[in-house]
């Protein structure tokens, strides 16, 4: 019984626009004629291609191998021929070396992939190995290699696991649909994670704008006789950010600059949990994911199960194309996603959504002077002074910005969202973080 309100300080209530896609069951999109698979889809060292142009591959074949501990392999997501290995536009920015595979339409699977009845009896190390081999990177958006997160150092035992089903970003409904449609798979994933970590407390955190998901989860937890609590959280962005989530659920403060494991917690996205289940139970690598394709600019918003590497164009085509007044294509949600130059970029492991936004939705205007209304200060979940930092950065005072804590900013975008003057805080903070790190490195 919790008496305290489950929440954190700050945050905003953007309009949700979830209704566009939340009732759309996940549709499987047919594999495209070709896929573009960047060698880097995760945080850490890029993987190394192990195929050459002209090679034939089957679904699930490793095409690039992890290089170092903090790195993950990638797999062929269609069967066919490697057509090229060359830099291609990447949804996170810039051009990245990518492996282009032409689909032969046969959908042949690598022979390794098969359901293993006794997977639950595997030991933790074997499970982690399967997770690594499956190429799992966090699907909540940050794409941090999952096996790393699951290998905490001995002095930092993890006692609490939180399944992040908050999906606090407006528009996105992929996690929501997964929780409804793949409830049991996800919970099996949770079991695996808790077993690997040997931790006692499990929470499934869901914002209370998804009552059906809460109900489904509660039902399944009861049926599966699991000892985890399904927590219904108030709707507030960024409820899903892990530090804020941990604060809301456990009332623990992850130290600034620290990691969840510093307070004995681990957070995984629902998509990751499902992928972990697939990886451990069937050695199935991460070759596809659920993407919410939505926005006023999309003619038929949907939740789509898409092969990794499918170009945005194709996915959007599958959803009826875009309207005339679309001015922005975004990889991810509207608050933290990245706007795209081109629709050629491929879906990667961290693509939770594809948004096509119209001019009206974005409400773009030129910035006005900051009127010091302090709304940004009030909403910042990290308790920073966004207006002060922005003003210092505009005058290139990076030392001051550093002192004001720009490195602690989680780039959630709440400040820019709420600002009546449309100050582009996040843009400035990203820039300042680069400059500050450059300076710190130079000094060290």
């Amino acid at each position: 019984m919790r008496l305290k309100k489950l929440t954190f300080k700050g945050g905003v209530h953007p309009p949700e626009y979830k209704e566009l896609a939340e009732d759309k069951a996940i549709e499987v999109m047919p594999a495209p004629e070709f896929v573009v698979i960047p060698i880097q889809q995760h945080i850490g060292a890029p993987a190394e291609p192990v195929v050459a142009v002209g090679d034939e591959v089957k679904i699930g074949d490793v095409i690039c191998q992890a290089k170092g501990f903090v790195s993950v392999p990638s797999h062929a997501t269609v069967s066919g021929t490697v057509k090229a290995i060359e830099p291609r536009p990447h949804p996170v920015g810039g051009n990245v070396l990518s492996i282009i595979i032409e689909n032969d339409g046969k959908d042949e699977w690598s022979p390794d992939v098969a359901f293993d009845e006794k997977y639950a009896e595997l030991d933790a190390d074997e499970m982690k190995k399967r997770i690594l081999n499956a190429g799992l990177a966090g699907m909540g958006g940050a794409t941090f290699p999952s096996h790393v997160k699951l290998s905490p150092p001995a002095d930092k035992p993890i006692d609490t696991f939180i399944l992040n089903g908050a999906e606090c970003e407006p528009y996105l409904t992929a996690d929501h649909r997964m929780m409804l449609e793949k409830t049991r798979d996800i919970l099996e994933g949770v079991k695996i994670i808790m077993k690997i970590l040997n931790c006692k407390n499990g929470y499934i955190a869901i914002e209370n704008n998804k009552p059906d998901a809460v109900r489904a989860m509660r039902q399944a937890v009861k049926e599966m006789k699991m000892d985890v609590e399904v927590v219904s959280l108030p709707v507030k962005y960024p409820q899903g950010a892990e530090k804020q989530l941990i604060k809301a659920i456990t009332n623990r403060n992850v130290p600034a600059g620290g990691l969840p494991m510093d307070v004995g917690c681990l957070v995984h996205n629902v998509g990751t949990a499902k992928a972990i289940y697939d990886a451990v139970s069937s050695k199935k690598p991460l070759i596809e994911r659920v993407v919410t394709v939505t926005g006023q600019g999309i003619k038929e918003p949907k939740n789509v199960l898409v092969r990794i590497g499918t170009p945005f164009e194709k996915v959007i085509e599958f959803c009826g194309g875009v309207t005339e007044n679309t001015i922005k294509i975004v990889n991810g949600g509207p608050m933290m996603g990245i706007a795209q130059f081109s629709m050629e970029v491929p879906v990667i492991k961290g693509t939770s959504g594809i948004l096509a936004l119209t001019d009206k939705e974005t409400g773009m205007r030129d910035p006005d002077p900051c009127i010091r209304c302090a709304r940004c200060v009030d909403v910042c979940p990290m308790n920073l002074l966004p207006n002060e930092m922005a003003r210092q950065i505009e005058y290139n005072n990076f030392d001051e910005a550093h002192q004001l804590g720009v490195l602690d900013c989680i780039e959630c975008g709440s400040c820019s969202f709420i600002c009546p003057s449309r100050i582009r805080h996040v843009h400035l903070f990203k820039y300042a973080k680069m400059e500050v790190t450059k300076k710190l490195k130079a000094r060290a």
Partner: protein
Amino acid sequence: MDLNHLFVITISAIFINNFVLNRFLGICPYIGVSKNMDSAVGMGMAVVFVMTLASMVTWLIYDFMLKPTTSNIFYIIFSAKEPPDLTYLKTIAFILVIASLVQFVEMVVQKVSPTLYKSLGIYLPLITTNCAILGVAFLNLDENFNFIESIVNGFAAGVGFTLALVLMAGIRERLELAPIPKPLRGVPIAFLMAGLMAIAFLGFSGLKL
């Protein structure tokens, strides 16, 4: 000693007749050292210290060396016929005493506490020929303050100066990040701001304690 009276002197020197905003003393450091908070605080503390000391010393000099009384030391040493009236030498005496005093303090601080010297010492030479210090000595005379009153007035005047300086420094740090029209940047806007501050301080005028 009437504490109430000392309280009135203090409030008056800090708020009602603020040295900078009402009496126009110490304007140069006020404009010159208010660009940054840290130096404003350092300068402020240095001024409080020197003003208090100067009030004390000049009072002693005036009463025991310049004023024609029977306790005048020249009268006592030279057993003159009547006490000499040397008050006309007050300007020259005060400025020399203050200048050497500041030098002396600087030396002592440097020897005794290098850390204090670092934060305070660099401002000391700037203060020597600052009209606020000499001004407080003359004001103490004008007001006929006794020894204790002079010290209190010197201290409070310094605090008033520091208050104006620190407020100004805070605001100017903000003004550095504002699109001020070119011709007004720097000193002119500082004066306009000082004018607006002085308008706000009119709120204290006519305070009856």
